[in-house]
């Protein structure tokens, strides 16, 4: 069965919802969100801090091959209910997207399948739309990095 990620972003609203069904028991899906070394693998980022509790904080950081930090994001955990719900803030450093409120809900479908929905609320409609456009920039950076690699091999 093909499980697809869905994005629900209604026009003119400052929120979006990401939903996905997994071929995983609920406990394993939840674990992928709370174990730093697992988060690092699938998010492709370094986990500097991940305090899975109410009033805990989290911090992720990604560096390029030269060791320059290219991405840093952080926030606080507002609510933490194991295997059920995480409510947290999210803010990217040095980006003009403001702070977002993220409500992550984990749901059991069957013994072997589960569902995740991430409800993200932005400070404004414009900021939400701006973030949706961001992966365009990612494509550009990747092309740029590829070019740098090729050039360095020539030298």
């Amino acid at each position, binding site marked *: 069965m093909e499980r697809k990620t869905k*994005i629900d972003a209604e026009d003119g609203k400052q929120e979006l919802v990401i939903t996905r069904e997994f071929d995983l028991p609920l406990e394993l899906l939840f674990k992928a969100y709370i174990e730093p070394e697992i988060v690092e693998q699938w998010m492709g980022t370094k986990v500097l801090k991940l305090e899975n509790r109410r009033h805990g904080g989290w911090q992720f950081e990604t560096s390029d091959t030269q060791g320059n930090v290219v991405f840093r994001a952080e926030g606080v955990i507002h609510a933490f209910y194991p295997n059920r719900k995480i409510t947290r803030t999210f803010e990217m450093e040095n980006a003009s997207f403001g702070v977002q409120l993220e409500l992550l809900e984990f749901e059991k479908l069957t013994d072997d399948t589960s569902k995740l929905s991430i409800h993200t609320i932005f400070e404004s409609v414009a900021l939400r*739309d*701006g973030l949706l456009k*961001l992966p365009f920039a990612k494509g550009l950076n990747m092309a740029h990095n590829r070019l740098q690699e090729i050039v360095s091999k020539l030298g």
Partner: protein
Amino acid sequence: MRLRRDVFQAIADPTRRAILLLVASQAMTAGAIASNFDTARPTVSKHLQILTECELLEQEQNGREIYYQINAKKMKEVADFIEPFREMWDDRFNKLESIMKNYKSEK
């Protein structure tokens, strides 16, 4: 249909995507846009012309200057606009799923 295809061709070019991103936050003159790229000024002008022709960008006269801004309405019409964002999350979740399947079988 032709126009629709052109819009996607316009978006497929990395420099044009970068221009759209740049202008997404504020309206800018052609000169200000060009200063963000190493590309020759006429090349940037050509990109701006293409983006304007397929209505992804709008021109606005402000005194003697022409400002380029995102045509939000047109952008929304490009139904697959959200697709790169969706694919990014789909990739991450696919990875999550395969990592946890291995994790389960190791236990």
